């Protein structure tokens, strides 16, 4: 029997049971739709996170007391010694280290005139921070060596803070209050955007010396640095590790009591998390399609039983086993294929809707569509084969007698 005829026959049968066909497809529709929607959301998330991580700077090494992504014993973290400015200077003197900027952080209210931005990140650092941490000054200047040496009360504002405090006026030269102390605005930074939902522009940067004088010197220092030209990331990291272990007196064989963070570490732990999520999703959707497929098989078996006589007639007038089997198999594949197609369209629509109404740049990937389509078709074949084979094997004489 030609394929065209098989296809027409199957379509005719399915359309004569529209409601049943639709309900049968539903499981596959939902499975395929969920797959495409979730994969699109994750793809969008990955894209935006990758772009965000670029804004940190690709070859920054950031040494701190705690790792960026914490997994494990937090008590041990809390008992760790502070990293000091002297530690930072020792790191800075390593031949493999290029630029180095120690930085310390606190949260204070910042105000100008009647406006106050509460609980804002205040960072104390050195001029190198601008380059290493990829902050570009848009207006005015960054803090200088002299600002640091003379403990000047100079402040560089993040673009968000500048906008809040100085919606109209030029902030340069104005006096702002940071944690109750007076600072002179010397510059405003260019917008950097968000990272994992947190703004990189809601901060004030002041000289590290001024920071310690104003807010105390008992905080742990973060050491941001980059490798010297021509030195590999891994070598630089190794040298930093060695010197800090010595300075912090870590016994041989004990783990580090500090953390060396890099962008690629962060990205890989992020990818690990979404990778697990991804696989879990594929598993769940596989399960949904399995359930949908069993539904298809069930309906196909009912259909075979219902049409026993029709099968007998077809065989009596010359249909071979394969003709009958093919017809039922095509029916099952049309059910799951159509269900898959509807699901893919629905899932894609959902993803695009998310993209429209949320900041998440959901992206429908060809991979997601291909996987959903493949799953749906495979389900059709897998769950269609048994009922179809059963139909093909029916004895024509008995089938004709079936009431």
């Amino acid at each position, binding site marked *: *029997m*030609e394929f065209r005829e098989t296809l027409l026959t199957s379509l005719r049968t399915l359309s004569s049971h529209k409601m049943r066909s639709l309900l049968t497809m539903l499981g596959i529709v939902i499975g395929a739709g969920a797959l495409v929607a979730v994969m699109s959301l994750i793809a969008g998330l990955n894209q935006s996170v990758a772009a965000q991580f670029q804004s940190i700077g690709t070859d920054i090494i950031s040494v701190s007391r705690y790792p960026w992504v914490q997994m494990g014993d937090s008590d041990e973290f809390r008992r760790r010694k502070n990293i000091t400015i002297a530690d930072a200077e020792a790191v800075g003197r390593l031949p493999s280290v290029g630029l180095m900027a120690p930085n310390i952080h606190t949260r204070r209210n910042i105000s100008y005139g009647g406006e106050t931005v509460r609980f804002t990140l205040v960072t104390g650092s050195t001029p190198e921070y601008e380059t290493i941490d990829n902050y570009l000054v848009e207006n005015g200047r960054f803090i200088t060596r002299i600002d640091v040496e003379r403990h000047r009360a100079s402040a560089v504002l993040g673009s968000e803070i500048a906008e809040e405090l100085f919606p109209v006026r030029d902030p340069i030269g104005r006096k702002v209050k940071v944690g109750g102390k007076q600072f002179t605005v010397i510059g405003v930074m260019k917008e950097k955007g968000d990272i994992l939902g947190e703004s990189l522009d809601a901060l004030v940067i002041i000289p590290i010396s001024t920071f310690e004088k104003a807010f105390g010197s008992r905080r742990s220092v973060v050491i941001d640095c980059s490798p010297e030209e021509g030195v590999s990331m891994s070598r630089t990291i190794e040298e930093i590790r060695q010197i800090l272990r010595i300075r912090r007196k870590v016994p041989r064989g004990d783990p580090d009591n500090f953390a060396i963070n890099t962008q690629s570490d962060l990205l890989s732990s992020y990818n690990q998390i979404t990778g697990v999520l991804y696989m879990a999703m594929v598993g769940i959707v596989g399960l949904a399609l399995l359930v949908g497929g069993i539904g298809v098989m069930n309906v196909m078996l009912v259909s075979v039983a219902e049409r026993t006589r*029709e099968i007998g007639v*077809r065989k009596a*007038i*010359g249909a*071979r*086993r394969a003709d009958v089997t093919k017809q039922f198999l095509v029916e099952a594949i049309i059910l799951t294929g159509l269900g898959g197609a509807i699901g893919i369209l629905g899932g894609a629509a959902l993803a695009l809707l998310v993209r429209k109404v949320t900041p998440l740049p959901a992206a429908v990937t060809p991979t997601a569509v291909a996987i959903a389509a493949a799953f749906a078709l495979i389900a059709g074949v897998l769950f269609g084969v048994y009922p179809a084979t059963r139909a093909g094997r029916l004895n024509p*004489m008995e089938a*004709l007698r079936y009431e």
Partner: protein
Amino acid sequence: MLIELDGLFKTYEVGTQKVPALKNITIDVKETEYLAIMGPSGSGKSTLMNIIGCLDIPTEGSYRLKGREVGTLDDDELAEIRSAEIGFVFQTFNLLPRMTAFQNVELPLIYGRASRKGRSDRVWETIDAVGLKERAHHRPSELSGGQRQRVAIARALINRPSIILADEPTGNLDSTTGEEIMQIFRQLNNAGNTIILVTHEQYIAEHARRIVKLLDGEVASDTTA
């Protein structure tokens, strides 16, 4: 010789018991014959028809169709023979309800792998021969019993089979319509078609030129008018 049945037995197994349905049947049927197989229910006439129609195979003995032994063929080979050599007409018509008369008649051509070219002409020709040209695009449910049986006859004829096997073809029709259907079989036989009619009605059987009577699975009489 078209059909040669020689020492044919058919035994069904019901549980552990063996129930003989046909016992030592030996019949020859020549081309262009018009044969009626008669007998009360349980006489084995349906079983015999199923075997002649290649829907079933004998337990013992030989059935040669156009000189070819049929009893040893597998499912698909039997399907090929049904497709090429046999045209069935059933008591309950057995048309496919979702297809039009035209599509029902076309179906054996599709299973017989006839090329699409010229298929439609042949269907029209055959439907015209049973006088249903105007109703060709109606579904079975929109046709009268007589019309349905005409469609079924057209479907049986379309592959130009060697044998037309009609199983109680008038059983579901009123006597006038039944008579019309029997006239069609008469014309088909006059045109050279071999017809085997299975019935339990004497007056229907009398349309045939030869009557084989079965009783308890055996040939009781074989008379040619």
